[in-house]
């Protein structure tokens, strides 16, 4: 066996080991990947839906301030300088 033949043999053995290894872990890995992928997609969807919620408008903020004013019991008088 010359050097070239030995090299081809080692390479074939390496490919075989690699292929058999991949075939053993394949199904579990896919499942895990799909879990991760699913979670990521859910998160993305949640983020998308959050971004679709309208930001508080100025009118809403005014109402908020009004209710704060009411809850603090104040239509207070301002001091005059």
């Amino acid at each position: 066996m010359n050097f070239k033949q030995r090299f081809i043999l080692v390479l074939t053995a390496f490919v075989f080991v690699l292929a058999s290894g991949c075939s053993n872990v394949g199904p579990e890995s896919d499942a895990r990947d799909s879990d991760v992928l699913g979670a990521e997609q859910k998160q993305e969807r949640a983020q998308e839906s959050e971004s679709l919620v309208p930001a508080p408008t100025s009118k809403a903020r005014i109402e908020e301030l009004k209710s704060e004013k009411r809850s603090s019991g104040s239509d207070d008088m301002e001091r005059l300088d």
Partner: protein
Amino acid sequence: MYGERRQLDMPACIGNGSCYCYLDMLYVLVLRLNCSITMPSTYNKIHRLKSQGWTWPEFLAEIAQVSVHSIDEKTLYSNFRLPHRKPNRLLEETINQLHEKYFPSPFPKEVEGLITLYNHLVSAKNYRTQDDDIELLKQFVWAELEQDQPQYDLRYSRLAWLAANIEFDRIAYCRDNGLVEKLADSQKSALKWFQQAKRAIVHCKQSLQINIEPFVIYKLTQNMLACYLNAIPSSNRLDNEDLKRFIDSSDYIAETKQMLALEPFQWGIARNGLRFSSLLKDADDCEYFFRALVTANKHFADLNYQLPGLLSIAESDDFKWTLGIINNKT
């Protein structure tokens, strides 16, 4: 502009005593702020100036004399017509200058500067040492008042006014946070200083014959009433005995009517007259002050008309009793 005017006044006012070191420092702060006094509102000032009988071209000519910047007639007129309109900085500063020219404050400028400084201090946001600095200012003012007590002049009066303002501004906070003892202390102290301020001004007007506008004294009466009102949550204000007692003893309603006869554009005075007439359940006065409010500005005919920072009449608990009367009449 405001800073420049203060700078010219500085040498005559400060630097002639150890107690003025603090004032020196405060003056520098006022100059750096380059600020303008926001109260009373620009709306009222424009009306007060216009009520001298100026036409709009005359008004604009007067503005041109005090300001290098020109103000267009539309801006001026819309700020005259609409109480809810927020004036731009240039207009506010220009009107302040013109107002000071024709209706100068009777008080010494160095104390006016302190009041301006305090107003900025108390309304500043994210100011880390705000409470401590206000306390320092209060200590200084109290020390000055102790020294001035025998004099009873306008300087004393304005310093007492500032001491009262500092206590007044704590009232709503104490009320909202259930600090009952502190609330009573602040209210008592504010009332004491407002009364001292009023006594000194009346003394200056009557004994020293100094010309002081009636509105200056009226403002103190209204501030004292505000000390009583703001200490009470709005749900407990109706038929409140403290309020009734003060209103009866101070002749507030009659004074308010006199003020409105002099300056019918003062919607704030008319609104407060309506508020107290409602709280005391006086139907005739409710009608009177609602008419005065609509006279001051027709926008108030709409009970839902709202100004920035104020509840509309339809929304405020203080006006609940009067709503039925107004709705029946209209």
